[in-house]
């Protein structure tokens, strides 16, 4: 473990350029796919795998360097700052979607429905009424069945699966905290158990989320296409779901690393970072639960 100051500047690395190439192939493939090219899916899949491979190698390298004691205390602090501000940027990403939700509910819909400063707008949508959840879109109000944008049949009440999921995720935040505590006191067994518990809760959450989506699509007629309610609902919960998936995966990796004998009581940033990320997705969910499910 090298001392403060004598700083380790890593040797040359092929990883960054490969990561850039892989990332490019992934999005380029996605673009081709969305524009209906038949090679799209293949380019996308190849890029995706390539990218995962590079990232795996990258994190493996970082872990190896740390085990080899190349990382100064200073570099570790840099990782801390890095993860912290990365999470902040994620918060701002969700802020955009929450902002959209608030704007639509506070301004757009009332105007379309004939209230507030731009009430005249309602003249364009005779008979439209602003409600939330928005079951009848302006399009439907004006054009009946020939409407392109149709509202949902039903929406999901907060006190069913969403409530359950809230409890699951809150619990998982607690269990991951215990896991951390155990690790700090070098109680590996306890650490593993709490971490596994967290993973189970995370997977359970994802399972119920999937179930909820399935019900929404097959029984409630609530889809991405069902007007602004569907749009905001699925983008917010969907991107959150993706983050939970990522978070679960990150924690899983930490579990494997611990089995492989990584981490010390005072040196386990990989796990710490993942647990912060986990708390972050938890907090976002609470926001979702309140503003997407409860306050309707």
């Amino acid at each position, binding site marked *: 473990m090298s001392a403060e100051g004598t700083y380790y500047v890593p040797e040359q690395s092929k990883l960054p350029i490969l990561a850039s190439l892989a990332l490019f192939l992934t999005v380029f493939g996605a673009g081709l796919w969305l524009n209906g090219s038949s090679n799209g899916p293949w380019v996308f899949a190849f890029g995706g795998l390539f990218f995962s491979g590079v990232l795996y190698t990258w994190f493996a390298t970082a872990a190896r360097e740390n085990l080899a004691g190349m990382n100064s205390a200073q570099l570790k602090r840099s990782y801390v700052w890095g993860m912290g501000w990365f999470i902040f940027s994620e918060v701002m990403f969700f802020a955009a979607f929450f902002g959209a939700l608030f704007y639509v509910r506070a301004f757009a819909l009332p105007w379309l429905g004939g209230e507030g400063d*731009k009430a005249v*707008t309602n003249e*364009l949508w005779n008979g439209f009424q602003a409600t939330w959840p928005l079951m009848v879109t*302006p399009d439907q109000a004006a054009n009946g069945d020939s409407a392109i944008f149709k509202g949902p049949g039903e929406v999901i009440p907060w006190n069913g699966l969403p409530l359950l999921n809230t409890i699951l995720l809150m619990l998982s935040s607690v269990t991951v905290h215990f896991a951390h505590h155990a690790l700090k006191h070098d109680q590996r067994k306890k650490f593993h158990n709490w971490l596994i518990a967290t993973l189970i809760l995370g997977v359970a959450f994802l399972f119920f989320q999937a179930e909820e989506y399935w019900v929404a699509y097959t029984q409630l007629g609530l889809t991405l296409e069902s007007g602004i309610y569907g749009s905001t609902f699925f983008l917010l919960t969907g991107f959150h779901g993706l983050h939970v998936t990522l978070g679960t995966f990150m924690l899983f990796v930490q579990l494997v690393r611990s089995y492989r004998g990584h981490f010390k009581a005072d040196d386990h940033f990989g796990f710490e970072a993942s647990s912060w990320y986990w708390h972050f997705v938890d907090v976002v969910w609470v926001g979702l639960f309140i503003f997407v499910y409860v306050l309707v």
Partner: protein
Amino acid sequence: MFKKDKKGLYSLVVAAFASCSAMAEEGARWGLNMTEGVSDTSREIYGLHMDIFWWCVGIGVVVFGVMFYSMIAHRRSVRKEASQFHESTTLEIAWTVIPVIILVIMALPATKTLVDIYDTSDSEIDIQITGYQWKWRYDYVGQDVSFFSNLRTSQNEIQGVAQKGEHYLLEVDEPLVVPTGKKIRFIITANDVIHAWWVPALAVKKDAIPGYNNEAWTVIDEPGIYRGQCAELCGRDHGFMPIVVQALDQADYDAWLAEKRQEAETLRELMAQNFSFEELMERGEAVYQRNCAACHGPNGEGGVGKAIAASPIVRGDINAQLDLLVNGVPGTAMQAFGNQLNDLDMAAVLTYTRSAFGNNMGDSMQAVDVYQYKAAQ
């Protein structure tokens, strides 16, 4: 060495001061400042504009004055040793507070003007304005007068084949006609993308947003013709959708309105009648040149749009072509003309295209057919 600096320095001085004063003088001499316009609002805005402008010139003179003074009086060659003073709370406070005061002075009149620009209440005439790619539609609310206003400048002028006229790109086939001295309320929206309805002389600029209505108002003092343009990027021909407002005094306006109503009346009668092939062809040609030629070419040779001459669609089933004209081709520049042309013009242009440009189909349609076809949809 330093000689060069000095020369450089002076030209810098000149350049910068030119910048400041130039705006005012030039503006005046070339008649290229903001227009004062023909409504109280436009004059208030012009006033605001000039006030802020002179404030800025003032600030510029002070700021640049000190700067050039230092550059000349405190350059190395005359001042070997620089003073080392820095930090001064008094100064810091001064140059924070003084700007704030200036800003407040600017903000007060602006606030007043803004508030009454937003007061659209008790208007005497309401006009619904709708932006289309790339034309304007005007509906006189409750008057059953309604028409489209298209660019009149010919493709030849634009392509430089023909001499450009005096009002190049600022002329339309049918201007918006309004009375002077009345409070006119504009209700503004769009049919496709965002446009912005702007007439500098009225100081009215409001975005036309699809699915939403915006409001604006004006009272025009003197009769005249006032020209403007679409002021929000709205696609290919954003630069080619001008606005012309013709202000008449009340009497002339009433006459115009009566005439318009009469036209609407006669049109309704015409719709009922049957037309001979020749009549349809004649009317159709006019409609074609006004609405279609820009994309499909004056002689049906095509351009942005497909060629009409020898087009399989035009030479195909007549109802298929009617459907295409009424509903347009989504995702292309071919718009749905169903709500833009009246049934008679639709029938006429249909008939015309099928027999013009060497498509000798010879068949024709009547307004009633179009009417029934639309009703069936």
